[in-house]
């Protein structure tokens, strides 16, 4: 660094440069780089590929992963938790939830409250999986599940009805273990 025409400050960094092109240095640069490249690929050969073979093998999701919604029932009385208050509809930024409430009657007691959701639809083509509906719900009737494989051929098939949201998913998404 002493061959610079000006004084260097103390925090000057010495830059290591490779040999210039041409001549012996250039030959070293070319062949050295080639050999290093060959060593790199040979190293990969010894490793196991990190590929996850998706449809057969799934990446586990975190427990807080926001996937397909679930509607819940009380485990003891088998009554729906949802009382049709439409707070989730108000909270939804994508406006993908539709709720039509109806009165519970003694011979048709669907939910634990006065009213229940006669229609509860979520349009999955619009849903942005923000989880605001979960936050807005005063009864924890709707929560975000872990399933993300919802691709389908028809848009109309992606409007999930109350029955679909109440049902358990057909295939469970693997969950990450604690600390994984």
């Amino acid at each position: 660094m002493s061959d610079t025409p000006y004084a260097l400050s103390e925090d000057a960094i010495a830059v290591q440069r490779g040999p210039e092109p041409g001549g012996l240095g250039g030959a070293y640069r070319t062949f050295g780089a080639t050999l290093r490249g060959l060593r790199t690929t040979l190293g990969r050969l010894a490793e196991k590929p990190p590929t996850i073979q998706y449809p057969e093998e799934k990446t586990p999701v975190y427990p807080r992963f926001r996937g397909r919604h679930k509607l819940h029932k009380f485990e003891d009385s088998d009554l729906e938790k949802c009382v049709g208050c439409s707070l989730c509809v108000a909270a939804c930024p994508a406006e993908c939830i539709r709720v039509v409430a109806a009165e519970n009657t003694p011979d048709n007691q669907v939910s634990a409250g006065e009213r229940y959701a006669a229609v509860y639809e979520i349009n999955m083509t619009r849903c942005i999986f923000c989880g605001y509906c979960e936050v807005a719900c005063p009864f924890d009737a709707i929560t975000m599940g872990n399933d993300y494989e919802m691709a389908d051929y028809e848009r109309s098939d992606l409007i999930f009805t109350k029955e679909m949201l109440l049902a358990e998913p057909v295939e469970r998404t693997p969950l990450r273990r604690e600390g994984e």
Partner: protein
Amino acid sequence: MALLAQAAPVLETTLVQIAKALVIFAFIFAVVPLLTVLERKLIGRFQSRLGPNRVGPRGIMQPLADALKLVSKEQSAPVTAVPWMMALAPVIIVGSAVATLAIVPFGPQGAWGGDLGLYGIDVPIALLYFFAFGSLAFYAFMLGGWASGSKYSFLGAMRSAAQLISYEVAIGLSLLGVAMTAGSLSLVDIVEAQGSGDGEFGMWFIIPQFVGFLIFMVAGFAEIARAPFDLPEGDAEIVGGYNTEFGGMRFGSFLLAEYIEIISLSGVATACFLGGWHGPGPEALAPLWVLLKIFAFILVFIWIRATLPRLRYDQLMSLGWKVLLPLATLNVLITAILLVVI
């Protein structure tokens, strides 16, 4: 009857020749599909991928699916094309590639009893034969590109021809050192010269001709248009080239020829530099050694392909003419001087 008895020895040698040709041909056509899947699997692993693994166990049936796809495809040609020439080009390239295999020696005469030589033919000018058929292969490139009647195919063909001619010189000179040391152009004689003859310690030519070996390998990669010299194909950035207008099995033939050329080039390299059939064990094991050495070369071909990026066209030309050609000439000169002095 007397005439038949007279003709018997000739007939017998002819039959043996035909049998040898069929065996070599059948063997190669059994190996090539495996080679394609091996290459794809290995390149995958070299690049931290899995490679094909859907058809059959671990993707081993992949070539079958590929071949089926190619065979069932339509043969289309542009209106400006010359159809019969387009049909001829794949025939020439596969023919020349297979013909080169005939001279690859798999074992000495009499290794498996009798006076049966374990090679297709032992031509006294094997190296010239090798170059001749190598040159014939790029007539197929030229013909294919020109007969396509497409200017891009034609440009691709010109590009290929320029590359192949440039490297033809270097590959020829690189083998000259071997031919001078062995004192013969026949591959069988060259292999014999590397063995331990009458109590004499045999030395593989890769040691005295190491520079020649490197030049042969580099130029060989360019000759058979393999990565990093695969500019004739240039599948990523220059849209094929001479084979742009080809489809179906005609296109497949070019691929097939490439793999046969890999085998034949590896065979010639084995014979010229790695001591051919020489190896420990009884003489009957000779073909095994040759096959192992060829396989090692093939692995190197795949390894290089998985590693090195394609050269730019001007780099390709300057490497061929400014580095390989002077180096090869120097190698021949020094070999000649050493041979005279020692």
